[in-house]
């Protein structure tokens, strides 16, 4: 019957109860809203990925890294991979944002074995109480060439990814820089570089002479043991070769425009040892045309390793490092 259903008061909220709850809720909301900090100690901790991304980028860009085993330690971890304790890509502490090409190459080498990713990640400080994942990319500005083998890094697995970009210079190594436009006196067709008192065993890599701000034709590269009799036994392509504006040039003679940058690379195999263990090829002569070179008088030569006027300089190109950080540890 309808009248019975209307009279049935079971399952109804009591008016007193409703009033009590309303008063309680109003008081509670008032307390939460107007007393700041009351519940701060009970708030869930949120881990901010952007600080992790910044911290990792700072370690990579501003720190040269570290290797250590007791009293044996230093920043050239790329030569002591077994003792690696922290990965950093900077040349040294004094030059933040200047990355060393050899450290980037070493990082690529380590990551060539995909099981080494966790080692790299752990040495970037990304495996503490929480495990993060990371991927790094370093692109040259202008050409867009990627320096890091990006396939060695994991694909990001969540949408919760933080990224940071840093502007850097990449140090390609040291070269003798010959700015030939500085000095308009003593100009001629020859330029002489010497390697006097350099031990043969110290020549381990390519010697590179960078020539710019001049025009003409480079004809030949000769060597001499006494600075008087120059001979041309060096073969183009094996003993020495040119890079013109960064690209390998297939011929030993070519003309330079004033805005070209020429790198003359001499391979270590081109040098011989004399009886005292010093370099036999003590003098190198670059011969060109017209008045290409400054300081071009016979008998004047400049030491490749420590000349004051033409010191070895780090060759730096602008690039952009991009770093992505995410974590699966607390996902879901």
């Amino acid at each position: 019957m309808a009248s019975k259903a209307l009279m049935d008061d079971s399952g109804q909220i009591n008016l007193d109860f409703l009033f009590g709850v309303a008063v309680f809720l109003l008081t509670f909301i008032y307390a939460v809203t107007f007393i700041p900090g009351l519940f701060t100690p009970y708030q869930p901790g949120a881990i901010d990925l952007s600080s992790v991304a910044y911290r990792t980028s700072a370690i990579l860009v501003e720190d040269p890294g570290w290797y250590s085993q007791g009293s044996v330690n230093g920043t050239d971890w790329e030569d002591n991979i077994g003792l690696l304790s922290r990965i950093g890509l900077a040349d040294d502490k004094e030059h933040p944002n200047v990355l060393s090409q050899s450290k980037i190459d070493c990082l690529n080498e380590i990551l060539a074995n995909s099981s080494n990713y966790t080692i790299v990640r752990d040495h970037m400080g990304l495996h503490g109480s929480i495990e993060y994942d990371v991927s790094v990319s370093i692109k040259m500005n202008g050409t867009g060439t990627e320096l890091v083998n990006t396939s060695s890094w994991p694909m990001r697995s969540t949408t919760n990814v933080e990224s940071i970009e840093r502007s850097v210079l990449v140090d390609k190594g040291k070269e003798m820089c010959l700015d030939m436009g500085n000095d308009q006196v003593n100009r001629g067709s020859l330029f002489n570089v010497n390697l006097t008192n350099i031990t043969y065993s110290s020549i381990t890599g390519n010697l590179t002479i960078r020539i710019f701000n001049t025009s003409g034709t480079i004809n030949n590269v000769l060597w001499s043991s006494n600075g008087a009799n120059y001979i041309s036994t060096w073969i183009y392509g094996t003993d020495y070769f040119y890079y013109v504006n960064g690209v390998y040039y297939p011929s030993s003679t070519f003309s330079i425009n004033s805005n070209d940058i020429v790198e003359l690379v001499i391979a270590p195999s081109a040098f011989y040892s004399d009886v005292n263990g010093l370099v036999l090829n003590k003098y190198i002569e670059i011969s060109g045309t017209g008045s290409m070179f400054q300081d071009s008088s016979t008998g004047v030569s400049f030491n490749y390793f420590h000349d004051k006027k033409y010191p070895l300089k780090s060759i730096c190109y602008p690039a952009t490092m991009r770093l992505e950080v995410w974590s699966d540890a607390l996902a879901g």
Partner: protein
Amino acid sequence: MRLQDDSRGQIYTIEGIVASFILLSVLLFILQSNSIIVPQTERAIDMKLYEKASDTLVVLDRNDNDSWSTIQPLKTYVAGWNGAPGEAMMTCLDNNISEKKMLPDQVEYNLIFVYNNSTALNSSTVIYHGIPTDNSVVATRLVTLNDNDISTGSSFWKTINATRHQPETIEVKLICWYL
């Protein structure tokens, strides 16, 4: 007796305890759990832009004696500045920052030199690309010109330095904002 039989107003004990346990454990779970967040706040975005701007000045301000680069050192530009905004020397710096992609595409910037011209502290806008928005960031770098830099630099610094014979310290301010 009627009083003992009356079941109104009693807590159903088991259900009550179970419900409170569920509530407490949910509360505890929420309080104990950590979450990883990517803040999309203005602060985080400004931090990234500031880092880029600061990096740009750090990268430009390198020592010419021990490194060679496609970009000229900041000191060379500052020493070559002749005191007027928008001149050719600064176009090179402009190109270094924009064409070499030191700053992202959607970022605009102004460059200001702050220096002392023997009477007062001067602030001069060297590169002007518009009025900065509210959320712009400023990165600064101090450049010191010594006698050697001034003697090979512009006549502007020579005039200022003629009566003082002390190194000139110039604050380079890079103001960046998103378009």
